[in-house]
């Protein structure tokens, strides 16, 4: 965060309005997009699971945190890329195992049961991480590929770690797009999300698609966790606000819309930065509050979110 932005966060000092300081405004938009793309990845992970199983995975952020700690452990033994990829693979396996062993049994049960189960996973992962890695903050990055001075155009600058988040988000979105739009498995996963019964009747092994969905979602979480933690540091609670924003992003975009998750993530990132910069406050976390106020307002007008489908069915 720039010095200007930090000053803006301190009580009573009001940042100059955008027309007087356009580069501060541009700066906040750019860094909003960078943090927002981190939210977008996690929001995508949430949406992927919600679309196919109608389960809101409250443990998504903790799973990402856990995967990031695993990456931290791997990093003590190997370079960035192998550690990063290994942690993604382990996260995917963890996601698949969770779906098979823990979520499958409550799949047919009322929605509240799966809420309780994912909340249970939330506390479990949190406790496990505390137990294994302790409560001391871990130095996490920036990794050599993200080191170096910020990239600047005029007087608007982006840190390399933020560029990393943006690039990671772009790569994930591209890969998911190709998977869902261009492959047989992707088509089958979309089908499973749309109509479970019809999918079974055309011969799609629906259970395997759900397992795969959880694996992908957990893998996205690992990517988001590793990339974001370079900016925010790593403790067992460091990704919790990120999870909140990701949830907000998913709801804002419409819980069943991947495009909505992306737009929602970026919007929340920008709104949050704007609020932090231009709203004078002697309360901390004003950005969080304002982000949620915006969401409530949007939902009053569009209850299913910006891109969500209204449950209208033609018979």
């Amino acid at each position, binding site marked *: 965060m720039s010095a200007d932005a930090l000053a803006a966060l301190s009580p009573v000092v009001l940042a100059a309005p955008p027309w007087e300081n356009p580069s501060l405004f541009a700066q906040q938009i750019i860094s909003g997009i960078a943090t927002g793309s981190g939210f977008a990845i996690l929001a995508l992970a949430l949406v992927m699971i919600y679309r196919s199983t109608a389960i809101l995975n409250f443990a998504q952020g903790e799973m990402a945190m856990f995967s990031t700690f695993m990456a931290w452990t791997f990093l003590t033994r190997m370079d960035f890329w192998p550690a990063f990829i290994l942690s993604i693979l382990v996260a995917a396996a963890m996601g698949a195992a969770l779906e098979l062993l823990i979520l499958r049994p409550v799949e047919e049960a009322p929605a509240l049961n799966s809420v309780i189960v994912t909340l249970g996973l939330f506390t479990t992962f949190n406790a496990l991480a505390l137990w294994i890695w302790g409560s001391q903050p871990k130095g996490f990055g920036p990794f050599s590929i993200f080191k170096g001075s910020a990239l600047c155009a005029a007087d608007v600058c982006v840190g390399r770690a933020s560029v990393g988040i943006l690039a990671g988000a772009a790569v994930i979105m591209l890969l998911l797009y190709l998977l869902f739009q261009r492959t*047989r498995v992707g*088509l089958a996963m979309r*089908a499973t999300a749309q109509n479970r*019964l*019809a999918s*079974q*009747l*055309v*011969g799609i*092994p629906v259970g395997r698609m759900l397992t795969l969905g959880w694996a992908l979602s957990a893998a996205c979480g690992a990517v988001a966790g590793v990339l974001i933690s370079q900016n925010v540091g790593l403790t067992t609670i460091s990704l919790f606000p990120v999870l909140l924003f990701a949830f907000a992003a998913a709801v804002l975009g419409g819980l069943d819309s991947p495009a909505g998750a992306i737009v929602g993530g970026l919007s929340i990132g920008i709104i949050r930065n704007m609020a932090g910069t231009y709203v004078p406050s002697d309360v901390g976390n004003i950005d969080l509050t304002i982000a949620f106020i915006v969401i409530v307002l949007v939902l009053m007008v569009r209850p299913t979110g910006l891109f969500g489908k209204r449950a209208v069915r033609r018979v």
Partner: protein
Amino acid sequence: MLSLRDVHAAYGSVLALKGVSLEVPTGGIVALLGANGAGKTSTLRVISGLLRPSQGVVEFEGRPIDRMPPDRIVQIGISQVPEGRQIFTEMTVLENLRLGSYSRRDGDGVRADIERVFTYFPVLRERSRQRSALLSGGEQQMLAIGRGLMAKPRVLLLDEPSLGLAPMLVQEIFKIIKAINEQEGLTILLVEQDANIALDVASYGYVLEAGTVVLGDEAAHLRGNEMVRRSYLGF
């Protein structure tokens, strides 16, 4: 080709089938008649592997299939066109047909079969790139049947193809069903509320009541049967 013997099945503690036995011979059209809640759809669900029988046997070409998962059952040659059509409304017509062929690996055969479906239902060709939610009810039913055919089944299970359609359309769809059966020798098990039209195309029929088969006979005989006439044909 397909036979059920003394099949019992339940949803939780609610017994849906209490001893259903029936035979579907190769190349025939067999009609399954009955009132709402008689167990017609449950019978199809059991055959497709969506509902596990608690008792009894389902055999396809001599081997038991009642423990197989639904995707295996499609692979071995039984495809169902479900009640209410259940098409993938957010996908295009073409994607729906592709999904119908999910159990197959023969790309050339799939392309040929898409053409074949278009020949039976030319309107689907015109609309192949459209989102299928935009199709009319009749077109959606055609798409559902087309999707069912894309699995290249040896037995096609049809659940209430006339549901919610105008009489003219129903006539048209049944003409095509009959044509598919005659031209390709495809075996069909047809569940239908409209007993009149079902017995027109079927060679054999069963009457279900409260989860059991109460009658099974040649279609022509069923037409003449007093009980069937009064309860299901309405004259």
